[in-house]
């Protein structure tokens, strides 16, 4: 961890608002463009799944599916959303293996929306190449790129890409350390276990701003959040379900770990990400979403979601945002009160949902949910 802490020792890159901060910590709120005056940021994401429609078993081809991702980003931009992101996955029933390439196309097809990964599987990639890709996406998009670095929830890609599963933990930690170092230093000197050493290497191109916006992907469990906190890296906390109060424990663990390592938790952004579906009533939302979740999870995880669990997702205390627009607004506001996070990411398309249905979800977010969420979460003070 001491190496991670050293990653942030380049204060010359940060000309503004650093007087009240530990000198080694970038002001991420500023770098990431989080402005509390604008309220909670709202984004959508796709894992990049390519699953059949559970009702008739039909499936669009991979080319069309990839164009759907691009269409989601364009629609999200048109609806006034802040962010769109796409996951990397190398298992069956996914189409976004080359997610950085698709994000390049999205960068070109959009103008204002921030774009990113959700997440990039750093463990099985070279951090130099990952940085090059995302810095390039940042330049194509005029400074809109973000990178969420994840560890993979599947192991097939370790074999596919030539890595040893026994190195699962260390591969990620070492590569994330290097990626963060490349991000903060023009000339990188580094050596590690899983890659040839770098001697005064200049990794190009450099992104538009001070640095690439890099997040650490965290599942629900506190252990990974603690690692993100100790390294002082912004966190995207993803969840499949459960209650908001349980995830508060993860958020608290993250902030405690950050404070323990000498970082100011108040300037470390947090994003949450999970299932979303809006309909006229909560019952209709459950009806529309359940077959997609259940069949999709069966195909990708081997086990569906019990109806009993899914039925509880409409409860105000549950973290999944499924229900009527008004119920979802109230849940998001409650989650914001509990977590104090900066961005919420809605997973709108899982399990072979028809393109038109996803477009409808984006429209509901833009017209009904987002304005209310912004209105009630905007604060006067800007850090």
């Amino acid at each position, binding site marked *: 961890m001491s190496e991670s802490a050293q990653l942030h020792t380049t204060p010359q890159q940060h000309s503004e608002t650093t007087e009240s901060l530990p000198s080694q910590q970038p002001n991420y709120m500023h770098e990431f463009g989080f402005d509390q005056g604008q309220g909670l940021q709202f984004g959508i994401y796709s894992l990049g799944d390519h699953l059949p429609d559970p009702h008739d078993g039909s499936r669009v081809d991979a080319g069309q599916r990839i164009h759907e991702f691009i269409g989601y980003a364009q629609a999200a931009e048109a609806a006034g959303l802040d962010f769109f992101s796409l996951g990397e996955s190398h298992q069956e029933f996914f189409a976004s293996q080359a997610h950085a390439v698709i994000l390049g196309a999205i960068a070109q097809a959009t103008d204002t929306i921030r774009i990113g990964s959700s997440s990039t599987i750093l463990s099985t990639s070279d951090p130099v190449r990952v940085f090059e890709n995302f810095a390039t996406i940042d330049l194509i998009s005029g400074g809109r790129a973000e990178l969420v670095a994840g560890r993979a929830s599947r*192991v097939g890609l370790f074999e596919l890409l030539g890595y040893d599963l026994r190195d699962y933990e260390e591969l990620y930690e070492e590569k994330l350390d290097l990626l963060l170092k490349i991000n903060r230093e023009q000339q990188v000197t580094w050596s590690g276990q899983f890659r040839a050493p770098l001697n005064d290497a200049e990794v190009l191109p450099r992104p538009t701003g001070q640095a690439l916006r890099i997040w650490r992907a965290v599942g629900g469990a506190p252990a990974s959040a603690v690692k993100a906190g100790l390294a002082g890296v912004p966190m995207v906390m993803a969840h499949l379900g459960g209650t908001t109060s349980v995830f508060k424990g993860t958020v608290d663990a993250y902030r405690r770990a950050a404070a323990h390592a000498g970082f100011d938790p108040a300037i470390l952004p947090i994003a949450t990400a999970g299932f979303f579906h809006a309909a006229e009533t909560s019952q209709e939302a459950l009806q529309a979403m359940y077959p997609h979740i259940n069949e999709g999870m069966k195909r990708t995880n081997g086990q569906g979601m019990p109806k009993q669990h899914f039925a509880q997702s409409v409860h105000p205390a549950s973290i999944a945002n499924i229900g009527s627009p008004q119920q979802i607004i109230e849940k998001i506001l409650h989650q914001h009160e509990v977590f104090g996070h900066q961005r919420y990411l809605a997973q709108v398309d899982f399990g072979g949902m028809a393109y038109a249905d996803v477009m409808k979800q984006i429209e509901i977010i833009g017209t009904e949910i987002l304005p209310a969420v912004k209105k009630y979460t905007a604060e006067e003070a800007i850090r």
Partner: protein
Amino acid sequence: MKMILLSGSNVGTKTRAVIDHLAEAVTTYDSTIEVSAIDLAVADMVFADGRNFTEYTGDTGRVARELMDADAIIIGTPIFQASIPAALKNVFDLLPTSAFLDKVVGVIATAGSSKHYLIPAQHLLPILTYMKAQVVQPYVFVGESDLHRGEIVSHDVLQRLDRLVEDTVVLTRTFASIREERDAAYGF
């Protein structure tokens, strides 16, 4: 109904002998039940390494998937060093934490000493409970003298096994119908 009979040891013959008898007993009880046996002594299993069960290949992947697809499972275990065999524990380690959700699981144990009678209760049932199984009560304990040259020679054990089969099937059907009724009530 799909039922798997799992002989949970890579050595020995007693547990397998009881599992073979159970296969016949299940078919005799209800020939519509799709019953099949897994014998860890003839499966080429790798150690669990934490991956999703769908990602194992070969016999390991087949065993994991067959167990996950089952509605009911009867696990046969010998007792080694006052516990379940490592081979059987490895099977549990291959599966997700809620692998036995909505499944009914029965247990038979074979052992060389009656002093081992409570071992399944202490070592196996907590695992099954953790993995969300509906466990059939009671389990059947088969001692050394209940078997002779691969055949069950105790009428008492034979009747207990018949009761275990009936209880497993009845509970599986009962829980399925409860679940069906409950899921229908959700209206989605």
